[in-house]
């Protein structure tokens, strides 16, 4: 027979549910607002301000943004960068993390020190630009994929994850005839899938949000990823153009609010849809491995 909950615990439950509902609303409402706004008419947006459900449903904003191939093209560019970039990220990060996790590697400590150094100090925009230019990557997608191929922070967490795998596992694999590479590919990687899935998502979101490096390194506007386009829409809509302190800005008529919101929806939804598929790995905890290590 279940124990009857006390009054105190029931009050606690009610308060808890209320509090969590408020938190959930706080995170969900902005999305609902943007999605609803993208289907609303300009008049309604102006008059009502905050809309959770448009009274007059219209697809005009979407018709407008899909009337030219630009948006679709930059969406494809972003998908390409995300998929390809994430593969490169994960491959290179794991490839570097594994040796650093092995206790028998030489110069492990100094290399780690160098990696941590890059987390604290960076060259800055212009030196990085010069390096990318000297490598001949200007105006190619490589400039978006290679410079950030390994994130120091992710590398260290993945290394810690590798480190908590029992050493005896590798030893027995070696006894069964594996060399280092096959230990890595056949034993370590399959066991690390939760971590890899999680960091794939981190990297993928990073690539999806590529904005500034694209503006810096890509001269050809047909190669712009979606965020550059999104920012153009949003910046124009807020009227913040030019240097407001010294220069008199040129007037550009801003796109309608609903168009801005439609672009936000189109540029956010695809990456949002990836979450549910990786959610079960999140449940296991990103830093799980590092705690034990």
């Amino acid at each position, binding site marked *: 027979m279940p124990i009857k909950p006390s009054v105190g615990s029931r009050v606690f439950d009610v308060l808890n549910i209320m509090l969590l509902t408020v938190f959930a609303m706080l995170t969900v409402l902005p999305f609902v607002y943007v999605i609803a706004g993208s289907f609303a008419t300009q*008049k309604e947006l*102006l008059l009502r301000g905050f809309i959770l459900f448009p009274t007059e449903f219209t697809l005009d904003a979407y018709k407008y943004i899909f009337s*030219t191939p630009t948006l679709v093209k930059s969406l494809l560019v972003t998908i390409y960068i995300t998929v390809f970039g994430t593969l490169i990220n994960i491959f290179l990060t794991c490839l570097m993390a594994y040796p650093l996790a092995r206790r028998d590697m030489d110069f492990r400590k100094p290399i780690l020190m160098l990696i941590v150094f890059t987390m604290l100090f960076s060259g800055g925009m212009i030196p990085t630009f010069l390096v990318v*230019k000297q490598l001949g990557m200007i105006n190619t997608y490589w400039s978006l994929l290679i410079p950030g191929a390994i994130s120091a922070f992710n590398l260290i967490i993945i290394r810690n994850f590798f480190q908590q795998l029992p050493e005896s596992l590798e030893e027995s694999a070696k006894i069964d005839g*594996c*060399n280092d590479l*096959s230990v890595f590919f056949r034993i370590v990687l399959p066991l690390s899938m939760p971590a890899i899935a999680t960091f794939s998502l981190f990297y993928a979101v990073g690539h999806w949000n590529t904005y500034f490096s694209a503006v*810096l390194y890509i001269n050809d506007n047909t190669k712009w990823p979606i965020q550059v386009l999104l920012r153009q829409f949003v910046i124009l809509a*807020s009227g913040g153009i030019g240097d407001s302190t010294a220069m008199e800005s040129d007037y550009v008529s801003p796109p309608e609010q609903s168009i801005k919101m439609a672009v936000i929806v189109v540029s956010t939804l695809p990456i949002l849809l990836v979450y549910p598929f990786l959610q079960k790995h999140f449940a296991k905890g990103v830093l799980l491995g590092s705690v034990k290590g």
Partner: protein
Amino acid sequence: MKKQHRKSLISTGALIASLSLIITACAGNNSNEAQGTGAGGEQGALPLTMMLPTYSAEQMNANSSILALLEEKTNTDLTVSWVPSSSYTDKLSATVASGELPKTFVALEPKASFIINAARSGMFWELGPYLKSYPNLSKMSDVVLSNSSIDNKIYGLYRERDIARFGLMIRQDWLNNLGLEAPKNVDELYEVLKAFATEDPDQNGRQDTVGLAVGMQGNNIAGFKDILVYLGGPNEWELKDGQLIPAHMTSAYMDTLKFYKKLYDEKLINQDFALVQDGRSVMYKGKAGVWIDNMLDGKNIEENIRKVTPDAKIDLINRISGPNGDATRAGTGYLGMYMIPKTSVKTEDELKRILAYFDKVSEKDMQNLLKYGVEGKQYTVENGEYKQNPDPKLRAEMTDSNQFMILQDQVENFGTELEKLSTELFKDNATFAIQNPASPYISNTAIELGNELNKIIQDATVKFIMGTASEADWNQAVEKWLQGGGSNIIEEINADYAKSAKK
């Protein structure tokens, strides 16, 4: 065991193969690039690469008919690299630092420190001595050239804008509803604002309107600088007894602060102004009667209000007189300038050909082409009436085409009533506009700390208007500004001024 080994060999092989594929793919990409830029360009046409800001989500197509006509008329082969206006300066500073500049580019903020430093180090051609040998370029205004100069030298071709474009956009239908006249001076302006806020100008039976729409445009309170000038204040800097003083240290600034505070206390401006990013949105909702900014905006504001109130009508007012008579704020007269780097244009001959291109762009028919497009395509003129072609494909061909323009002195006055009116008022404004006397001068401290220091003043201004800061607090903020580097700015600007006054 052997099998195992072979398998690992195969996987290593696959790894190497995929890596080499990646590398070759990269190389392939590069060679395509080289071919792309190398091909094209007929004999005799001047190849000209340029970097320009774009203000649209979508850029001008490379095979736009306007671009083609521009190339044909000027005998050039243009390669344009568009950069979003919002990140233009960042990209430009990286490009300048790398030294790999196009043959010409627009410096949107010619007084940015990296441009000044590069110019001082001799990175750009000094264009001043060449201008007089070109029929159109020789007509460039001395005032604007001086505004855009660096250390009294002309390093760029400014892109002309009307020198004074600010004014009032006022709801004419509200004036009619209340039977009021358009305001002509500051006192009448106050009366009109009061009537707009209290006498139900939209006749909906509720007191839900304000007089003046105010927002924070960037860091500046909308309309503040204009009302400062109406009240007899200076435009950014005041020249008094041979000394330049920043606007916020003048007594007119205090008057303006008090004026705004009165508007705020009497609820004649929207009470949430400090949080509103773009004050125009208050106008759009049909809740405000006056907006002060670039009058070119009037047409867009009217269109937006009409979505809510179909019979709204906007009128433009450019003359509001105060203690010193009619006054309005002058801009710098230009928006960015074309610069020509010595790193990519090596010979004087090439420089002269590029200047000839800019001279050609400033001819009358080219100016109109870049402003309105091709007659019969982007627009038609029937019985003297200008009509825009609504076809989005044709309109898209002239996206940002005005970015190519330098001089705009011979552009036809086409457009809607409001657009035509604004063009006329700009001309009228120019006759009595108050210049910023400090605009040719450079202060290194202002370049470095200007934004942070401005924030002190802006914060104090907002607080004073909202009544959370007293006059003593305001004076304290000014003192803080002076000590934080403001006194250096004043010193440097005055030193620069003294230097050029001697010449």
